[in-house]
């Protein structure tokens, strides 16, 4: 494997993981963590300047370039956030130094796994990477060792490993479909080769494969009814991990799903993956929208909102077409940025208020104006209100598909509306009204949160042409 940007995004996290596992203390290591994440991000950006050639094991194309840069960027900002967050956790003794060392190492391992999943040119390798990412997050979710945390991690582990198994079975089936055409051996698992020959594969085998892959990776995406692990994992784990889960891991799983969708799209005889994805997406969106109303835990609420948005995204990709695909990509990007920003805010809020119970938090815009308005801004963005970016993607999704599938879109619109109602009925009590809870000042770094929100805001008004052309190419790839 030659040393280029592509292998760089893998090597830097891997090496720093080892380093961080070795180093004691947390001040230094947290900074190192940020540094490593930043280096990875820089390397990822360099992919746009000089595009390395995809080899047998690693590939790079417009599709995963977008994902890589997004992943590494959010990973970088999240590491910056987690530096201040973890510091506070140690002060209040919720985490021990040993845990922190483990935590930082695992953080980098997670980065490594996700990047590997994105650049892998081999369906088997991709599978391995995603499993690695899952297992790492399982360990990190359980890190607090309260029984809620353990139960969440356990739930996540069981459902996750079922997902693993189903995805593997699907992968094997894809190989079985490819093997008669391409011939035995590793070639039959290499994306670049699969794509060229997909038309001759056995369609029925591909169909069965896609069902398993949809369920397997769909579990990671958090589609209802496979979502059960997601809310608790978000709620009970440390907040940076919630941000990474919502902002990145879901995307990575979605990326795998998209790859296989492209594969099926190339095979005319196979079933259209669209209807399946549209159905799952709608179910998730509607279900999650209604789940928002009864939430009492602030992090769990936003976890459900992630499910809703994943539903919208999967719906968009399921509908297909250049506009809808573009919208799906945009929505995914915007959601990652916004949701992680929200979790940054929520993390500090939970720390300063000493609780995650919505009922015990009130009047934030009075007691902590910056945090409070930041949260309001985030919720406005996540609810799909202008001028934030998600409005643009929702506009495109709805308006470009309504003519094609009126009834489905009406359902989607209802879901969006219900979700908005759920989000704001909670926001009203959290951010406004008579202040409740501690009014102690926060020592927090607002930079990551507002950086994300600024990007989302800018994207809602102006999108740089380079980005647009990139997205449009990907949208065309997705068919």
């Amino acid at each position: 494997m030659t040393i280029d940007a592509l292998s760089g995004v893998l090597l830097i996290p891997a090496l720093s993981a080892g380093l961080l596992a070795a180093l004691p203390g947390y001040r230094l290591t947290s900074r190192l963590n940020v540094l490593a994440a930043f280096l990875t991000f820089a390397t990822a950006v360099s992919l746009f300047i000089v595009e390395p050639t995809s080899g047998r094991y690693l590939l790079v194309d417009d599709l995963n370039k977008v994902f890589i840069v997004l992943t590494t960027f959010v990973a970088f900002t999240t590491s910056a956030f987690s530096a201040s967050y973890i510091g506070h956790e140690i002060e209040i003794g919720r985490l021990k130094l040993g845990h922190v060392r483990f935590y930082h190492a695992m953080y980098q391992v997670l980065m490594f796994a996700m990047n590997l999943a994105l650049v892998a040119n081999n369906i088997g390798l991709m599978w391995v990477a995603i499993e690695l990412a899952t297992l790492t997050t399982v360990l990190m979710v359980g890190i607090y060792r309260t029984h809620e945390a353990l139960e969440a991690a356990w739930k996540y582990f069981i459902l996750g490993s079922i997902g693993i198994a189903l995805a593997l079975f699907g992968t094997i089936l894809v190989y079985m479909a490819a093997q008669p055409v391409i011939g035995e051996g590793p070639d039959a698992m290499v994306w670049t080769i699969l794509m060229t020959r997909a038309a001759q594969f056995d369609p029925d085998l591909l169909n069965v494969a896609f069902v398993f892959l949809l369920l397997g990776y769909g579990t990671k995406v958090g589609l209802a009814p496979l979502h059960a692990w997601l809310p608790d994992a978000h709620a009970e784990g440390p907040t940076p991990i919630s941000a990474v889960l919502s902002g990145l891991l879901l995307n990575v799983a979605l990326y795998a799903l998209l790859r296989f969708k492209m594969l099926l799209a190339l095979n005319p005889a196979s079933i259209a993956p669209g209807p399946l994805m549209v159905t799952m997406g709608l179910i998730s969106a509607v279900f999650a929208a209604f789940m928002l109303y009864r939430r009492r835990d602030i992090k769990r609420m936003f976890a459900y909102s992630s499910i809703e948005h994943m539903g919208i995204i999967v719906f968009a990709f399921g509908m297909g077409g250049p506009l809808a695909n573009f919208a799906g990509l945009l929505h995914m990007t915007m959601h990652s940025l916004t949701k992680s920003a929200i979790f940054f805010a929520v993390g500090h809020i939970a720390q300063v208020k000493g609780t995650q119970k919505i009922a015990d938090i009130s009047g934030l815009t009075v007691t902590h104006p910056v945090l409070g308005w930041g949260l309001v801004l985030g919720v406005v963005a996540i609810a799909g209100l202008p001028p934030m970016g998600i409005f643009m993607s929702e506009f495109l999704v709805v308006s470009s598909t309504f003519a094609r599938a009126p009834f489905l879109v009406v359902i989607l619109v209802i879901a969006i509306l219900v979700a908005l109602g759920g989000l704001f009925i909670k926001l009203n009590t959290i951010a406004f009204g008579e202040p409740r809870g501690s009014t102690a000042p926060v020592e927090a770094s607002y930079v990551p949160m507002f950086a994300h929100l600024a990007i989302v805001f800018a994207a809602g008004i102006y999108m740089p042409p380079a980005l647009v052309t990139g997205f449009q190419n990907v949208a065309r790839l997705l068919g």
Partner: protein
Amino acid sequence: MQGLTFDIAHMLAGSLVLVSFMQLYQDRLSALLNMFALHAFVLAASVAWQAYAQDAPHLYITALIALVFKAIIIPLALRRIVIRLGIHREIENVFGVGLAMLLGIGLVALSMVVMLRVTSGADPLAREDLAFALSVVLLGLLMMVTRRNAVSQVVGFMSLENGLVLAATGAKGMPLVVEISIAFSVLIAFIVIGIFLFRIRERFDTVDVQAMDRFRGEKR
């Protein structure tokens, strides 16, 4: 000769399904663990036969892994856990064995239907194998669903993975990466589960999943 290899492979795969049914039938943990050992053993045998039939020597490694890890080490370890927790003769089915069996048969039928729709483009051996593998996977899932006890859920999970191995070995010339990853994942799975079982014990004094559900993040 081709016919004979085919029949033997067929027989082995079929017997794996049979053992899955027997697992489904057990209602005591200790007996269940024995059955799982048998399950893994049959798997090892069929993998070995595939290795011979496809004369793919690397598959012998897989067979060995299956034999050593799944047929011997894991059952022993689980047995120790079970005995330590003193739950080796627990009866913890959600509903009657008969119903479970019926469901199992339905699942096997379903997997047959799904797989036999596959055009004969793929070679018959692979097709049959896949059908059986799918049935084993589904039966493993069914077991996880119908058992309350964490250990037996783990067992169900691993028999599910056996099904995967069967499928993988059935696929001609599937690269080594897969087997290794399987072993890898099984190992991880076992370690993590072990950790969790211990933690769970020290927190809850039982491995009954329902007990943990009493400590939900959000009270109703």
